[in-house]
């Protein structure tokens, strides 16, 4: 019973968000500038929730998420530069995501045998290799990058990609393979002992994460006109990780909340360019000091709502 209610609540939330933003765009309240902010938020949601799946839920610390993002961005950009149609965009996005997943698979097989810091450094190295490859390929136009990419992303695309990513990740985590991944994070030895092929599931979740990072990259390329290798360096990987940690490792809604919150703060601080980075960093320090488990910890918004519900029901019963 609770499960269905939760589902309905989630779907209602998605529908309300879609309609609200669509209405505001039509009314002209959301201008080009604020839409760009929304695009960034959505891309950050896609990137952070997929990294959260890998790092927060499955416990595989990755510093290479921007590398996978860049694969999606480049494949999509190169496709829509040749075919600037919605179909071209769809193919470019899926192609980029699949290529990112494939690279994730190939990179994951040897590196996911490593643990903790070693894995982090290996993934960091991988992202650098990807960046250098794009820097030196002729087709990607090297350091100058690709420009005049047709802008094909509108709110429909953006919403479909973001909501789709969140739903698929939530589905995965609430399934047998997903539980196996969470078990790896909880206790790898015990997971193996109950029959979880840990390497297989680590590679699965890693390449699934890469797939969604590729989607995020494709949206980026198809909205911001211009991409170059430096946009997808180490600092972007860290930015994504910051969102995951601030939102809460192991909470999808945490990643959503943090993506929105950090972007809003960062946009609001644009009025004070000199202090912007200092205040932003202070905010992060404060969050870590007062809520080291992240804003949501490992809870989901829906859980919180429903424990309230249940508690209220219980006290009512006891009272009656």
């Amino acid at each position: 019973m609770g499960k269905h209610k939760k589902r309905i609540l989630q779907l209602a939330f998605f529908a309300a968000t879609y309609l609200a933003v669509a209405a505001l765009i039509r009314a002209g309240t959301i201008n080009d500038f604020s839409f760009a902010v929304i695009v960034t938020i959505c891309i950050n949601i896609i990137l952070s929730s997929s990294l959260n799946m890998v790092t927060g839920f499955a416990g595989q610390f990755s510093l290479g998420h921007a590398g996978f993002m860049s694969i999606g961005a480049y494949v999509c950009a190169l496709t829509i530069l040749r075919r600037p149609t919605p179909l071209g965009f769809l193919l470019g996005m899926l192609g980029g995501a699949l290529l990112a997943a494939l690279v994730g698979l190939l990179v994951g097989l040897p590196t996911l045998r490593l643990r903790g810091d070693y894995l982090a450094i290996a993934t960091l190295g991988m992202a650098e290799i990807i960046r250098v490859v794009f820097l030196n390929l002729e087709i990607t136009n090297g350091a100058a990058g690709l420009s005049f990419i047709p802008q094909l992303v509108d709110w429909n695309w953006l919403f479909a990609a973001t909501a789709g990513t969140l739903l698929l990740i939530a589905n995965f985590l609430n399934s047998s393979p997903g539980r196996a991944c969470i078990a790896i994070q909880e206790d790898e030895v015990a997971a193996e002992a109950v029959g979880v092929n840990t390497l297989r599931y680590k590679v699965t979740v890693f390449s699934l994460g890469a797939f969604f990072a590729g989607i995020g990259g494709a949206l980026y390329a198809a909205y911001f006109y211009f991409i170059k290798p430096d946009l997808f360096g180490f600092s972007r990987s860290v930015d994504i990780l910051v969102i995951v940690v601030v939102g809460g490792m192991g909470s999808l809604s945490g990643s959503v909340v943090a993506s929105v919150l950090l972007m809003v703060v960062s946009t609001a601080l644009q009025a004070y360019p000199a202090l912007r980075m200092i205040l932003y960093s202070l905010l992060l320090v404060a969050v870590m000091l007062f809520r080291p488990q992240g804003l949501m910890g490992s809870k989901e918004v829906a859980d919180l709502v429903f424990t309230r519900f249940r508690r209220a029901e219980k006290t009512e019963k006891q009272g009656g």
Partner: protein
Amino acid sequence: MSILTIQNLSKSFGGITAVSDVNLALECGELVGLIGPNGAGKTTVFNLLTGVYTPTGGEIRLGDLALQGKKPHYICGKGVARTFQNIRLFKNMTVLNNVRTAMHQHAGYGTLSSLLHLGRYHSEEQDMETRAAELLDRLGLGDKADELAGNLSYGEQRHLEIARALATEPVLLLLDEPAAGMNPAETLRLTRLLHDIRQQFNLTMLLIEHDMSLVMNICERIYVLDYGCVIASGSPADIRRDSRVIKAYLGEEAGHV
């Protein structure tokens, strides 16, 4: 027929031989105890059996299947399940999900249907949930299904470990000190429980335990390990009288008293 045969099993860590030339055989349906003083190598034998360690030498056979050098998940898939001496539950998962995780090898759907929740996802999940609830009921944890495993009492956590091991549908169950830290009343309950599940699930069991009342009560045969070697084996009555065993437990002088 022997379900498990261990021949000349050895394991050394650097210069230290933790297990040397151990021979052991379990018949189908037996409940056998593995005892010995602290540091005798009992848990190392379990770790070798379940693939956590690779043996330095020797053979492990489950029926006709060689298990030495195989990965733990493979060995689990062939029907060997275990519990851990220092409880290793998935603490931040619910009790139900601990058990469901252990069923994942038998979940009949792949990654794609797990993403889309299509295909056999719903029927398989329903089935797993029913079976997990049944298992929890049998182990007296039926009303705790939605609690986090880490919030259970110590005794309940031990029971959950057994439930989780049973969820993998084993033929051979290895229990590493299931009664450790339990009071006599809890131990008695555990003794009955082990007796019951053995019959219900048609299991062969190998049990490491320090609680002699438990071991002597329910084990049909006992192996005694000391310094990595089997120093005695036989019925509980034989073991109780064996002078080498008394020596190992109580020391040289006491053997003469």
